[in-house]
């Protein structure tokens, strides 16, 4: 195949050609950077939004209240039964005492509420409850049905109309709406990402292709002088790798301040989730993916483009 000296020469000419074709190389690197930038934006933005969506979903749960008289052992038995259901992600038991201390914690600044509690005295009890998180919001219906099946009627608290007190039923409309919104957002994001990434790929490929089109006469001369295909193609692949390394570096250099700024501006919107923080904590994966995409794109474009002109 390729011996050591040929490999060294291919590397050497790849670098020399990159620098001698300054203007073309610069233009190619810039367009390539734009493509990688788009891919990066889709990657970071898309996964950040997915984190935000998961976070929102995480906040949605259903809780079932139990009667005061329900024995703890039965509640825990129900908990175990729920935990083996495929739709259920986790179940948390909140005892009457815990519910009270949580309630106090939540209203610790509210004099009126604390005052009322004091008046009610030691005998006041909040119902024990199970907080159930589903695998995803669409599973709430099934879980609610399971609880409403009648088997647990003697322990579940009921409201005035005789229905079990399951929060999902109380907020069903809002949860369903949120669920469909999130699903749509996910699908839309995925489609948009795919389209943007495809455009980026095509633009990068066309640019590298154009740079090599400029050299098509040279390629045919090299062949007539007796250069092997590998020796002719090699330097173009090296150039492609160089584009593919510089473009992600430029992109990351732009991303850093851009996400810092975006993070500041959207702090209010996403609360504790910050896009800059997300970017920083995943910087190694992001750099690796962009670098991989850049080099692959550069090499593959150069390979396909030279193939066309290596026919003589």
């Amino acid at each position, binding site marked *: 195949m390729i*011996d050591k*000296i*040929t490999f060294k*020469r291919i590397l050497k000419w790849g670098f020399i*050609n990159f620098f*001698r*074709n300054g203007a073309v190389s610069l233009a190619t690197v810039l367009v390539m950077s734009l493509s990688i930038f788009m891919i990066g934006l889709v990657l970071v933005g898309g996964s950040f939004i997915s984190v935000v969506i998961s976070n929102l979903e995480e906040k949605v749960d259903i809780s079932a209240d139990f009667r005061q008289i329900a024995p703890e052992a039965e509640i825990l038995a129900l908990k175990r039964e729920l935990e083996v259901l495929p739709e259920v992600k986790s179940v948390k038991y909140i005892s009457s005492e815990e519910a009270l201390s949580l309630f106090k914690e939540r209203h610790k600044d509210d004099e009126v509420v604390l005052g009322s509690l004091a008046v009610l005295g030691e005998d006041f009890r909040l119902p024990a409850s199970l907080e159930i998180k589903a695998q995803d919001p669409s599973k709430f219906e099934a879980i609610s049905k399971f609880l409403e099946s009648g088997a647990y009627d003697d322990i579940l608290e009921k409201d005035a109309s005789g229905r079990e007190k399951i929060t999902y039923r109380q907020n069903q409309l809002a949860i369903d709406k949120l669920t469909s919104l999130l699903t749509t957002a996910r699908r839309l994001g995925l489609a948009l990402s795919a389209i943007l990434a495809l455009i980026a790929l095509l633009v990068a490929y066309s640019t590298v292709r154009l740079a090599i089109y400029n050299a098509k*006469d*040279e390629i*045919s*001369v*090299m*062949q*007539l*002088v*007796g*250069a*092997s*295909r590998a*020796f002719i193609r090699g330097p173009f692949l090296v150039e492609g790798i160089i584009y593919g390394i510089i473009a992600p570096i430029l992109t990351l250099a732009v991303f850093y301040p851009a996400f810092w700024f975006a993070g500041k501006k959207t702090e209010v919107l996403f609360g504790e989730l910050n896009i800059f923080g997300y970017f920083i904590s995943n910087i190694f994966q992001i750099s690796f993916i962009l670098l991989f995409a850049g080099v692959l794109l550069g090499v593959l474009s150069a390979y396909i483009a030279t193939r066309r002109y290596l026919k*003589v």
Partner: protein
Amino acid sequence: MIYFEKVSKIYSPTSIALEDVSFTIKPNEFVSLVGQSGAGKTTLLKLLLAEEYPTSGQIFFESSDIHALLKHELPHVRRRMGVIFQDYRLLPMKTAFENVAFALEAAGRPDEDISSDVAHVLDLVGLSDKIWNFPHELSGGEKQRVAIARAIVTRPDLVIADEPTGNLDPLNTRDIIRLLEKINDLGTTVLLATHDKEIIDSLERRVVTLDKGHVIRDELRGRYVL
């Protein structure tokens, strides 16, 4: 050394570039290929370089049928043929030295050989003082001399020159032809395509005349007659 056997190149029924061409070139010959534009000279050279494929017939370089070679074998045969074009076809982003060295690098020769051989050949064509110039900094005659240096640096068995003086003034033309003669004297076969009457008449070597795709004359001490 070179055998054309009933070679035809037919692009379409109305466009016949070569028809039933047969002739032989012996080692160390200096053969001029003459004919008007469109007579088939360039097509014949392109077939010899395997840049194009014949419609029928075969071309042998020694014992190998050029058009039956595998893709990876072709470069080896091409390294035994040096090519010179009317439009020089130097690599624009490489210096004179690098252009000449390219042929050797492609052949995988060691660096020490390359630097000594290239310097030697550029000296032979009289360009020792311009080895680090890029093609666009050279005159037409100088470019053609770089091209000749590139063609002969691999010590090929055959040098193919397609109208090498077509873009040059008379003085440069004479220099280039003299170089080709020198190369031939040193033992390399030369195949020169031209339509320059003066060159042919002054050479007094073998002349193969093409007309409308046919060999109409093949004389050992030919003159330019059409």
